[in-house]
């Protein structure tokens, strides 16, 4: 899924923390998104019931995923579409590349899709000589910059308008102003032609409706609608779990997705595609293909503890309230999926608790994520459990293991605990200055580089209590 970064999490974070421009852009955006979401939550009566309902729908679907995928497949076929199942990223890339070749496609237009990021589709298609153009404004910007999304809903959250104007100016060969009308006008002009000349449109899938075989796409720019109506051929790519049973269920999740993502009641466009054009239809594509991607999801499904992470509706709300994401942005996570949900699913999808098992530690377990998640995924519990999985699979650090072993030996009995406290209190003496340890000592540097360390008191509460009782 994700190419393994060369740096470890801590070093990636250090690098990100030096990027003031990015951090400022992220802070500003997540504050705005969260405030909008809070407002939307206040305006919708019984918000908690909506969350509960969303959870129930997702839970039910995921628990019966085999049934609903079969139903979906049957109904897509009935509507004239073809369904392909890709067990992994490589298979998915091959299926899509083969389809494009089969249709003699040269030019491809895409609408926003995280799963195609996950399978690294663009580079695969470009490698076989196709032109791939992202039509979501933010994705288009990232494509020009040669970057990846740093947020699942707002892919270019880390960029400010001046940087965007600079990128556009390069393409235009002249200065493009940095105000919104100028930027969108420029992108529209370029993208319109790309839409018209595209042979194949590739989309993601926010939700597939099993009972009708429909693919639902939400956008604010209308680019998914153009992607699915102008080209002759449409290929939708979906993560295996992105399905809901009925249109009624869709209503619930579609009420929650935009509200949690941006605070909107509804996105500007909601497109529902039902297979290919049938006799008597006034519109629709000639050929429709649905590619269902597993890529580690079956493994998650089989794992009762972590299955619930598949309930995610990809709203991004957990990113927006995460105090860690707020400081380091999305790229430092190193995975296609960052933020709290990314820290949960990346080690699982990758089946690599050694390298990717660092991500569950990118959290203070503050539970801000859990408190907002519309699917009520207990994200911090899953992060907590993944840490244990990493340690029990033998990937903890030797030093750390040693330290905790010592800690256990002293802390499991009051007598040794008291002894340890006494030793700490006496041993620190030469370092204490006015109640704090301030020197940057090798062992304490991780703390004292940024903070004073509160020194242990001369007498513990326990000692004072005993004295008092006498």
């Amino acid at each position, binding site marked *: 899924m994700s190419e393994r970064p060369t740096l470890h*999490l*801590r070093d990636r*974070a*250090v690098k990100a*923390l030096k990027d003031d421009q990015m951090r400022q852009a992220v802070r500003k955006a997540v504050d705005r998104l969260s405030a909008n979401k809070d407002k939307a939550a206040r305006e919708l009566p019984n918000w908690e019931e909506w969350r509960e309902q969303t959870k129930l729908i997702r839970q039910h679907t995921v628990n019966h995923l085999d049934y609903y995928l079969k139903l979906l497949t049957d109904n897509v076929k009935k509507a004239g579409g073809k369904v392909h199942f890709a067990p992994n990223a490589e298979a998915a890339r091959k299926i899509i590349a083969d389809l494009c070749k089969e249709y003699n496609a040269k030019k491809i237009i895409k609408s926003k899709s995280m799963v195609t990021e996950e399978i690294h589709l663009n580079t695969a298609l470009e490698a076989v000589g196709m032109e791939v153009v992202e039509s979501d404004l933010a994705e288009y910007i990232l494509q020009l910059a040669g970057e990846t999304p740093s947020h699942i809903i707002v892919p270019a959250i880390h960029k400010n308008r001046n940087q965007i104007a600079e990128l556009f100016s390069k393409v235009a060969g002249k200065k493009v102003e940095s105000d919104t009308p100028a930027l969108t006008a420029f992108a529209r002009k370029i993208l319109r032609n790309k839409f018209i000349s595209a042979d194949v449109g590739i989309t993601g899938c926010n939700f597939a409706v099993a009972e009708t075989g429909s693919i639902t796409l939400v956008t604010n720019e209308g680019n998914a609608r153009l992607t699915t109506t102008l080209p002759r051929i449409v290929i939708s790519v979906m993560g295996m779990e992105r399905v809901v049973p009925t249109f009624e269920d869709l209503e619930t999740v579609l009420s929650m997705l935009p509200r949690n993502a941006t605070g909107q009641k509804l996105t500007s466009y909601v497109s529902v595609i039902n297979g290919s054009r049938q006799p008597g239809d006034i519109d629709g594509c000639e050929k429709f293909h649905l590619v269902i991607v597993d890529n580690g999801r079956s493994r998650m499904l089989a794992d009762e503890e972590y299955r619930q992470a598949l309930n995610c509706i990809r709203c991004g709300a957990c990113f927006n309230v995460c*105090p*860690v994401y*707020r*400081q*380091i942005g999305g790229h430092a996570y190193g995975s296609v999926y960052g933020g709290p949900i990314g820290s949960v699913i990346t080690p699982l999808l990758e089946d690599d608790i050694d390298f990717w098992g660092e991500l569950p*530690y*990118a*959290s*203070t*377990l*503050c*539970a*801000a994520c*859990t*408190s907002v998640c519309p699917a009520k995924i207990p994200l911090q*519990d899953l992060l*907590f*459990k993944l*840490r*244990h*999985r*990493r*340690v*029990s699979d033998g990937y*903890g650090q030797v030093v*750390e*293991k040693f330290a*905790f*072993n010592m*800690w*256990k030996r002293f*802390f*499991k*009995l*009051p007598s040794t*605990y008291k002894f340890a*406290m006494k030793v700490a209190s006496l041993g620190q003496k030469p370092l204490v200055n006015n109640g*704090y340890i*301030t020197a940057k000592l090798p062992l304490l540097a*991780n*703390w004292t*580089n*940024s*903070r*004073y*360390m*509160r*020194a*242990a*008191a001369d007498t*513990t*509460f*326990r000692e*004072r*209590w005993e004295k008092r009782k006498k």
Partner: protein
Amino acid sequence: MKASIFITCICDSMYPQVGEAMVRVLEKLGVTLDFPPEQTCCGQPALSSGYWEYARPVAETMLTAFKNSQYVVAPAGSCITAVKEYYPILFEKDPEKYRQAKELSAKLFEFSEFVVKILKKEDVGARFPHRVTYHSSCHARRFLNTDQYVRTLLTNVKEIDYVPLPHEEACCGFGGTFSVKLPEISEAMVDEKARNIMETKADVLVGVDLSCLMNIDGRLKKQKTNVRVMHVAELLDEGMRL
């Protein structure tokens, strides 16, 4: 009314005066306190770092220490959360310990929660003529839902000049071993917290969780600021004596 003190290791060793303040307030409110000497630490450092096997024997000291207590009061939301939220996971496969963990959870209270909910005291008769802001700790706010009780207590303090803290709900960046495993991120978080505190121009920052307060205080002191960092028990204790 009788209650046992769960002092927590941070309070025991670094902030004994907070424990003493808690004792004074509770005794003034008519509580007879005891201190079960078998207690050590809730086991959180190992627990949240993934070393459950090391955390378990330490957590067990908690289960035995408070076996006979009717109520248990602690000056730290995060240690209580360890018991309530994580012990059931830790002892999932040991029905007897699991039961004991649940039993302890049911009688374990954060200081302000105990005062308002159990003692039914919303106004302890304190006066505190200072500009005060409040950091809403993650565990008290989101796990224990005891944030409301601190607010109730603070609102009823006379002459207090209370200023809300911008982003009061944001984590201070401590997170136990997080603060030393990913110290740069932790620093960025506590730095933002400190900046928000400075912005309020408060003389005092008050909170209910000593680990957060230790972290924030450490940052504020490093930055040579004069903000006084206090546990709510200290504030009430001082206020009741004024």
